[in-house]
């Protein structure tokens, strides 16, 4: 609203402006690490059993090789040796199973997970820092709204 200095009349005018923030787009921060992105920090029962199965597989393979892959005409090849290896494999698998159940922590995986979390945190900190810098550089743009003027 305006008032004339010459005459005691008043008048009003309406003008539109566009107000806008001019700012670089902000980056998204990295999502939280999901289960598939972190290593297991403890030995599961399934993993312990899998170790036992691998050892039993070696034992079975040794027996199969000596008993079934040898020539029937020539006879079995050192069956006592294959049994010896099978015994070593079974004992190894048993020891592995017991050891894994008593020592479930996986310190290498814990350290690797910590490294991955720290890396994500550092990258997110960098993203936040860049975003704050962009926000600080935000410019308020005021411009007449195109096509909209005072009413007649």
């Amino acid at each position: 609203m305006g008032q004339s200095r010459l005459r005691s009349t008043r008048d009003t005018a309406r003008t539109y402006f566009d107000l806008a923030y001019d700012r670089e787009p902000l980056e998204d921060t990295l999502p939280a690490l999901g289960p598939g992105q972190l290593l297991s920090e403890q030995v599961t029962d399934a993993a312990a059993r899998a170790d036992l199965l691998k050892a039993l597989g070696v034992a079975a393979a040794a027996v199969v090789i000596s008993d079934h892959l040898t020539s029937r005409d020539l006879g079995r090849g050192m069956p006592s040796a294959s049994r010896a290896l099978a015994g070593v494999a079974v004992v190894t698998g048993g020891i592995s199973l017991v050891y894994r159940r008593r020592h479930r922590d996986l310190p290498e995986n814990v350290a690797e997970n910590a490294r991955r979390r720290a890396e994500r945190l550092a990258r997110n900190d960098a993203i936040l820092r860049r975003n704050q810098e962009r926000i600080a550089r935000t410019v308020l743009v005021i411009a007449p709204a195109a096509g909209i003027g005072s009413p007649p």
Partner: protein
Amino acid sequence: MTTPAAAQRRIEAAAFVAAIELRVDPGSGVERFSGPMIGGEATLQVSGRWALAVRVGDGSLTARTPGGLNRDVGELSAEGRVRAGTELSFSAGASRRVYSTELARQRWNTLQLGVEGRLPFLGGAMQAVARGALLPVVAVNGLDHPKTAYTIGTGIEYQLGQGAIGIVYSLERYNFPAKAMTQRLEQVSALTVRGALRLGRGRTP
């Protein structure tokens, strides 16, 4: 300063002792020989994936069947290996094996194409090993080429810091073509204990 390539290039030295049994049927009945073999192996890891290995062995086989002649066995082999992932590798190589008796010397020259799988367990402290190879070329003096020739084995390897100890049971089979109603068959069984020491940085070949 060590470059990444140089850091991966390292040598593994290994020694092995094996109990070997050789069974031969030249067409007139099974002859059996057994005895120890000792030897060594050097593996050069030339990159993260490629390795070259040379192996020598020497043994003495005693005849376990009447009429058999004791024989000495010597072997020299070389092969190249390439990794295909962390648990699988392929190899190609050549070997020369010589059986010597008081009367004759038999030379075996073979080419082999092999594959080896390793399944780690106990957090990588041990590995279950399975390997096999086809022997597409087997040249033996005085004999035809075998129509079937392969080797197969399995075992366990224990990692001990920069070293490793492994025990492997293996079988080699050779079926020669039948001639005059007889067929020559040979098979070699072995239980091998192998100790290895890594002399550089890098991964196991």
